[in-house]
Structure formats: C-alpha cells, structure tokens
C-alpha cells in the first residue's frame, strides 16, 4: 500500500541470435523510459500521466514498433493503434488506423477525456485529432529504412511477419544471418516490437497503455490487440496490464482482462495471476505481458523466447531484461 511501481515493454518474442548491440540498444531505451517514469512518480505525477509520458517516449524513438519505427502494412504505409486505461473508474480510450498522428497514445487519451466515446478509428480518429490540435505529420515520418527492408523480406517470403520472433526448436547453432523461418512463423533479425507501460502510483491508482504499428505486411485496415480494451490493455482498481505478442491470440484469450479477472474472481495475487494466465490462457499462442497491482507489486510473464522489458518499484528494485 502506498508504493509506486512501473513496468515497460518493447515486445515479446526475441530472436536468440539478435546481435548484442541491438540488445544493448533496446536495454538502453528501456532504461531511459523507466527513468523518465520513475522520476515522474517521485514527483507525484499520477499513474495515467506517467503511462502516457512513457509510451510517448517509446513511440518517438524509432527502435520499437510504435509511432516512428512502426511495422509497415502490405502497402508499405504505417497504420498505428493504441489504447490507454485508467484503473480507478476504468475509463478508457483507443484509436486505430492512424497514419498522421505523431503520438497515438495521446490521441487515445483524448478520446477518453474529450469525446463521449471509448474508441475512434480512421478516418474519424484523424478528424478528431485535427480538431484537438494534436501534432500531425506525414506518413513518411513513421517509416524507417529498416522496416522498408523487412517488408521486402516478408513479401518475398509471402507471409506475415509478426512483431516478435519465435525460433523453431534447435536454433542453437543456426546461422547468424538466417532471417526467416518458413513454417508460418517467420523470424527476422531486427523486427521491431509493440510497446507498453503499466504504472501504479503512491495512491494505489493503476493505469496501462499500449501502442503499436501492428504486424509487418498486414492487410490495410487490420486491427490487432493493442487498441482493444481487455485484450492488449486493461486497468481496474486491482491492477494494470499491457500485452504484446501474437495479436490474434491475445484477442481470443482476452489476455489483459484475464489477469484482473483471476485476481478478482479467483482471489489470486498479481504474480499468481500472471503465471496462471500465461500458462493457461494462450493455447498455442505466443505472448507476454507486464502488470502492476494496487499494492505496488510488479510482474511480467511470457511464453515466448524473451521479452524486452524493464520494471522498477519504490522499494528500490529495478531490472531491465531481454531473456
């Protein structure tokens, strides 16, 4: 009671062959975002504001799959989506299909606070953005060279590139430059990741936010789990959760909501809830999540090989990890 905690993620499913300097780059970004969140929490900034602040930072940095650096649709464009949820009254906001809004998470927050609705998608979402005067840029701003290259690879393999990497069994000894696996789960070396942040502040208020460009080579108009309340994002009196991984699996298992549901209905604590959900809810799906509870606990779980993540508590615990 009365202690803050924060967790951030940059996506679940990491290629074990990921070069060390990319891992270090990711860890530096996660650390930087954690520090931003921690210093805001120390200044008594409310959980919801901290979540928005940190996710904006992740969106702006081109390393992960959100905002700038988003994965590309089959047309080579960027379509972004995000959602944010405030635990105390379970207020929520979500947006999808964005092509010109610089910070999707902030627009999601505006939907929550300045519209009578919870979820706006394109083209209405962008009209709303204009009216709200949020920063808008050309779609090109979001596109990076790395991702143009990856889209090419994905098209050559004629498959969807997920925003995570699942190695097949026995990749120890696999060639360092092996890009794609051909069994429906392609891996690529520098594939970017969805991002998210969960926070509980000193008053015990939880909040969560998730933002992404979605699947590489996705159909235009495809909506994944990140903007869907209960799937990619959820927060209530008890906890805040943000998920990443196979969008379709997260939707079907209502992953974020389920963490809270087992706490609420089965009386599990945060760590038990996260374990339970990862073990029992994903079927053959691959995903990961971060969560905080109103008691100042933080937890993460994933059934993928690795998840880019960082977490910290007021008590001084801090960890940034990939595996």
């Amino acid at each position: 009671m009365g202690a803050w905690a924060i967790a951030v993620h940059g996506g679940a499913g990491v290629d074990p062959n990921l070069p060390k300097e990319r891992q270090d780059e990711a860890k530096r970004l996660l650390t930087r975002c954690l520090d931003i969140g921690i210093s805001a929490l120390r200044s008594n900034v409310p959980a919801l504001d901290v979540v928005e602040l940190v996710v904006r930072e992740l969106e702006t940095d081109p390393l992960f799959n959100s905002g700038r650096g988003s994965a590309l649709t089959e047309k080579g464009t960027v379509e972004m989506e995000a959602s944010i949820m405030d635990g105390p009254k379970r207020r929520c906001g979500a947006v999808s299909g964005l092509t010109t809004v610089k910070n999707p998470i902030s627009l999601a927050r505006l939907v929550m606070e300045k519209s009578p609705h919870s979820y706006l998608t394109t083209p209405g979402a962008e009209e709303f953005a204009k009216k709200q005067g949020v920063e808008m840029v050309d779609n090109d701003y979001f596109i990076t060279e790395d991702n143009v290259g990856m889209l090419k690879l994905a098209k050559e393999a004629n498959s969807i590139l997920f925003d995570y990497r699942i190695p097949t069994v026995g990749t120890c000894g696999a060639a360092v430059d092996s890009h794609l696996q051909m069994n429906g789960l392609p891996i690529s070396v520098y594939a970017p990741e969805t991002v998210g942040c969960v926070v509980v502040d000193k008053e015990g208020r939880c909040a969560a936010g998730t933002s992404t460009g979605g699947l590489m080579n996705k159909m235009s108009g495809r909506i994944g789990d990140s903007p869907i309340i209960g799937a990619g994002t959820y927060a209530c009196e008890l906890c805040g959760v943000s998920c990443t991984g196979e969008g379709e699996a997260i939707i079907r298992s209502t992953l974020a909501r389920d963490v809270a549901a087992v706490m609420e209905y089965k009386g599990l604590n945060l760590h038990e809830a996260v374990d339970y959900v990862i073990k029992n809810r994903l079927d053959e799906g691959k995903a990961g999540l971060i969560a905080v509870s109103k008691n100042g606990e933080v937890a993460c779980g994933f059934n993928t090989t690795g998840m880019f993540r960082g977490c910290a508590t007021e008590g001084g615990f801090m960890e940034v990890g990939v595996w």
Partner: protein
Amino acid sequence: MGWAIALHGGAGDIPHSLPPDRRLPREAGLRHCLDVGIAALKAHKHPLDVVELVVRELENYPHFNAGKGSVLTSSGTVEMEASIMDGKSKKCGAVSGLSTVVNAVSLARLVMEKTPHIYLGFHGAEAFAREQGVETADPSYFITPENIERLKQAQDANRVQIDYTQPVQKEAKDAAATIPNGDSQIGTVGCVAVDSEGNLASATSTGTYANHLCAVSATGKGEAMIRGTVARDVAAVMEFKGLSLKEAAAYVIDQVPPGNAGLVAVSSTGEIATVFNTTGMFRACASEDGYSEVAIWDSPL
C-alpha cells in the same frame, strides 16, 4: 441438454407506452428470426452458421439498429460493425466502419475464416468485402427515414443517443422529465446458440464472446460494455467463481451502471439467460425442450 438459442434487438429505455406501430413490427421481427434459428438448429446446422443466419435476418430488418436501419453518425452516414465468435476454437472475426456491406456479420465471419487476422476496419474492410464478392449496396440503402429523424432530434438535443435513449420532443427541451410516448431508439442485434453437442457460438454488433462454457451477446451503451468487458466477464465469472449462467449474467449486469446494458447468453448445457438493467430489451429465446419466449420488458408477451 439440447440445443438453445437466444437473440436480441437491443436494450434500452423502451417505454411501456411504446405504440403498437412501433412495437408490433419488432415483435414480429424477433419471432421470425427466432423461427429461422430454431429451424436451423433442428436441421443440425452448426451454431456458428445459426448465429450468422439469424443476425443476417436481424440486419436485413429495418426496425433494428444493424444493417438496413442502422442509426446514423453525426454526418448522417452509416458506419456498421459486427463480430462473431466460435466457442470451441475461440476463433473470432470483427469488422467496423462499413458503409456498403449489406451483411456485416457475414463479412466478420469471412475475416475469421479467410484472413490471418481477426479485425478489419474501414477502407481495408470494404476492400476485403469487394475481394470476397459479398453483397454490397449504395450507402443510401441502409438509411431509413426514422433514423434521419432520430439524428435530427439527437442533434437538436445536442447529445449522443444510446441504443434506446428517449428522443426529446421538440416542445419539451427540458428533457429529463418527459418520456415521449413515441419512438424509442432502436438497439443493436445479436444471437447466441448452442447445439446438442455443446458447441457454442455468438454474433453481434456490440459485445460478443464465446468459449467452451457459454456464448454471450451484449447490448446497450457501447462504452459501458467496453469498460466492463461485459461479454467476457460472464464466462470469467462462471469459470473462476463457479457461478451458473444465470447467476453470472445477473452478476455482470449488476456491475454496469443502471440503464446501460443487457445481454443474452446460452451455456454449453443448454441453459439460457437474458438480463438487462434498462427498461427493456427486445429479445427472443427457445430451447429444445419446447420452451420459447418473445419479450420486451420483464414479463414475456
């Protein structure tokens, strides 16, 4: 145990004084759609086919807020959405922002079966519809005079009309007190079904969920449904708290602020639940043992 089916045409502040010319077509619609569903279940059609069939019928009926007869956006246009879910596999499909697709629920099913995705919106969804060759119509096909009038009233009252908010009479702008005896807003539609093997399915325009325990279709104020993850919670409460279908449905609706939600649900063992915290909910249900009901308010008609 045997098959069971429940469907709804929306929950809301449906006045008891609803005049016959508004009430009768909807009752007839509910009965007709129920019969379609019952016939399909008797013919051993899979619940997924049954819910799609029934929701298509509801979409084609201009008196319900789906397909033809959909309510209008602030620009006077129609933007339709739907979702469908199969309980056993938990495969699902969803579409939104449609303006020319005659049956949104069928497109949602195609997303589920013909794409690697779950949810397609707007341009992408419309483009996919054309690729799949589904029936499309000019946007004006979906717009009815009643809804043009309702939009006008809502704009005059400067608010968003939820599924069944009472429209404000022009002479009584201090709306809170008056309950016009007219024209209640029409609600979303949905259908849930279970066959005698316990296979479940659900399809809706608002909250949809199905797993191995139950299938739920929720209706009412969308925003309240999203925050409350209503359809999902019914199943969660059954699974994690061990409540029965009826107890779970009542429990979940109780958590939503009054006047905002309703749902229909069936369980894998053929039970049916219909609960709402609004004045009424257009609904119909039946089970293999011969039970059948069409209702709007608390007691069956």
